């Protein structure tokens, strides 16, 4: 007997929530999960192993939107403004990171969890030394006004910045 995708999503999100509340990842705090489909996570700027310390002491907010086909479909993950200055993060909060997207060059897998996603993002910040936005940031934000980053055709670089 097969289950409806909505029911799978519901149960899966509930289990992830339970796990998160028991073992929250380092530097991350769940600040909103009332309707279960929208989470807001507070991300503490990581201490970098090298200079300059770009994010130390700052806090950022991640918004997670789950679709009905979660986890077969990736969640929509964006930074709420102000987003961290990073060569892979746009001013509007869109993030260029392969695990957040599916399709043939995307890296999303249904075996990934929000816990792992949050940790990946924190390490992405921790390893960065380049205090600038992606090229074409202003254009991109103007073009994408109000649209989901899932509509973008991302090209991912090989290096794991």
């Amino acid at each position, binding site marked *: 007997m*097969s*289950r409806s*995708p909505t029911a*799978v999503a519901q*149960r*899966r999100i509930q*289990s*992830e929530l339970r796990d998160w509340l028991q073992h929250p990842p380092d530097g991350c705090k769940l600040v909103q999960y009332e309707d279960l489909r929208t989470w807001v996570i507070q991300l503490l700027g990581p201490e970098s192993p090298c200079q300059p310390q770009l994010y130390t002491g700052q806090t950022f907010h991640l918004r997670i939107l789950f679709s009905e*086909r979660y*986890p*077969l*479909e990736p969640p929509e993950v964006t930074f709420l403004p102000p987003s961290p200055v990073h060569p892979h993060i746009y001013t509007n909060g869109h993030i260029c990171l392969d*695990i957040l997207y*599916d*399709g*043939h060059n995307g*890296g999303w*897998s*249904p*075996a*990934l969890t929000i816990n*792992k996603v949050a940790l990946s993002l924190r390490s992405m910040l921790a390893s960065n030394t380049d205090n600038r936005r992606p090229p074409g940031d202003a254009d991109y934000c103007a073009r994408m006004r109000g649209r989901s980053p899932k509509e973008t055709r991302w090209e991912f670089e090989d290096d794991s910045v």
Partner: protein
Amino acid sequence: MSDYGDSDYDMGGSDAYSSGGDDFSYSGDEAEASSPVAKGAKKSFVVLDKEELRERLGAGVSQVVELLCISDAEATRALRFYKWDLTKLQEEWFADPEAVQVKVGLVDEQPSTRRKEEVCKICFESFSVQDMACARCKHYYCKDCWRGYIHTSIESGPFCLDLRCPDPECKAAVPRRVITAVVDAAHQERYDDFAINSFVDDQRQIVWCPAPDCQNAVMSMHDQLGVAQDIFCRCGNAFCFNCKEEAHRPVDCDTVRKWMIKNSAESENLNWILANTKPCPKCTRPIEKNQGCMHMTCSQCRHEFCWLCEGSWAEHGERTGGFYNCNRYKRAVDKGEVDEQEQRRQHARQSLERYMHYWQRWAENDTSRKRALRQMEAFKSETQELISEYTATPVSQLRFITDAWMQVVHCRRILKWTYATAFYAFADPVNATKEAKARLAQHQEFFEFNQGQAEHYLEKLHGQVEKQLNTFVRPPPSPPEGEAAAAGSEAAGPSGRDQQGWAKFREQLIGLTDVTRIHFEKLVNEFEKGLDEALKEYDVPMAQASTSAAAATAAAAAAEEAAAAKAKAAGKAPADSRRITRASKRRQGPVDQEQAAIEHEAGYWQCSHCTYANEAMDSQECELCSQPRGATR
């Protein structure tokens, strides 16, 4: 001509070119006699339908499974990685198996779980291990999650063929048994289609038939890819393996492309030619061309003329000894002295005229070919039954009519392209030496002579199958009163006289189809060989031949003698006469009274050279080929 390239071959799902076998090979047996291409052409491609593609793909995968002891999914992935090149995969595998395994993502077999239950890493629920599945990596997921995962992947495109275990760190290929165990029929079909597409798209020697509704692929066995190759798909589409345009032998792909670009650039200038009416050259009554052959008869004054050059048809006939002549482009002669500007204008006009000449013949032959295709379809779907009834001939024995139509279609296409190629091949050479110019002129003359001859037979064949055939699409006249009673049941059948006419028509059409094929093969072969080569072989002093038709005829006759002699020396009959011998086998034997009686009965005599049925009983020369009656070569 923007509509060029639309496949008019797929009309009515015609099996025009299918000749029984899949492989387009000619063993010479009767079942394959219907192909428009000469028999004996070496087998150089195979048409594969979906089922056959599936079989070939499966066979390739099984081979790798056995050879490398890996799963079918892994074998598919490995083959895909090496573009289905088994040899390459094999070589690299035996040279460095681990490197290949990493490249294609093969992982070591992991031990199975000892537990009875596992948590599915997608839905986070516990299941009995029996209700779960995994790849070699032994990452277990429940069947519902597998289904969701695989369906999602199939829906997102052909990369599902490289599907990995859902674990983000794991590269294990998802085995086929897992896929087939969980997906529904529709997804399975899409998955299989992706595999077949990859099998075709990733291999240089296989292409899809470009006809819009055709699902067949074609595998070329040509040792040289990247050059033009005519393909005849089972759906009836004839296309070039290399450039996917309509088949265009003997012209190369570059010329075709150049010609099509030129046509679209000149389309404005060409519009006026597209008009389908012309005034009769004699009485100026507008005449609409609604038949494919170029031989027009004005319904008003009965003037017979040629649609292309508007010259009298009598001048195109063999009676004048002039052969078909309107394929030749003759440049208007400059008259008197003119100033420089006028000269430039003249030059521009001439180059446009020259292009028009070739374009018009190219386009008319294309139109003719399309119409012939439609007529062939109409014959097969409507007329055939009627003719079968009226002539008391079983449909199975009417194949010769379809064969004739196919020959017309095939030859119209060849002829069409010879005009495009002539446009480029015989353009006024800039800065050429006198000798080079003379040689080119010689080539052009030789080519145009052969083209004209081929065209002459094609017109004859086309006219025969288009017009003569219609005379049999009405019931035979009933026999006179009184005889009817005596004849009894035979009264319903065709009268003896009609039966005679029918037999003659049949003989003529078969003969003409053969002769036309021979001439076009000759034309194509010469062109492919290169005109220099072709001329040399005939060893004819063309340099001395003037432009007169008589000289050309003499040259061609000499050429045929030479070819025949050469073939005889090689211990075999020349291709022409061999074929003709076959066609006229029934008529062989000593020409005796019996023979004369048969001919008298039939009301015609058949030319032993070209098989044409001559009606002029006391003539000693064939009306079609001018060979003496009864001459055996």
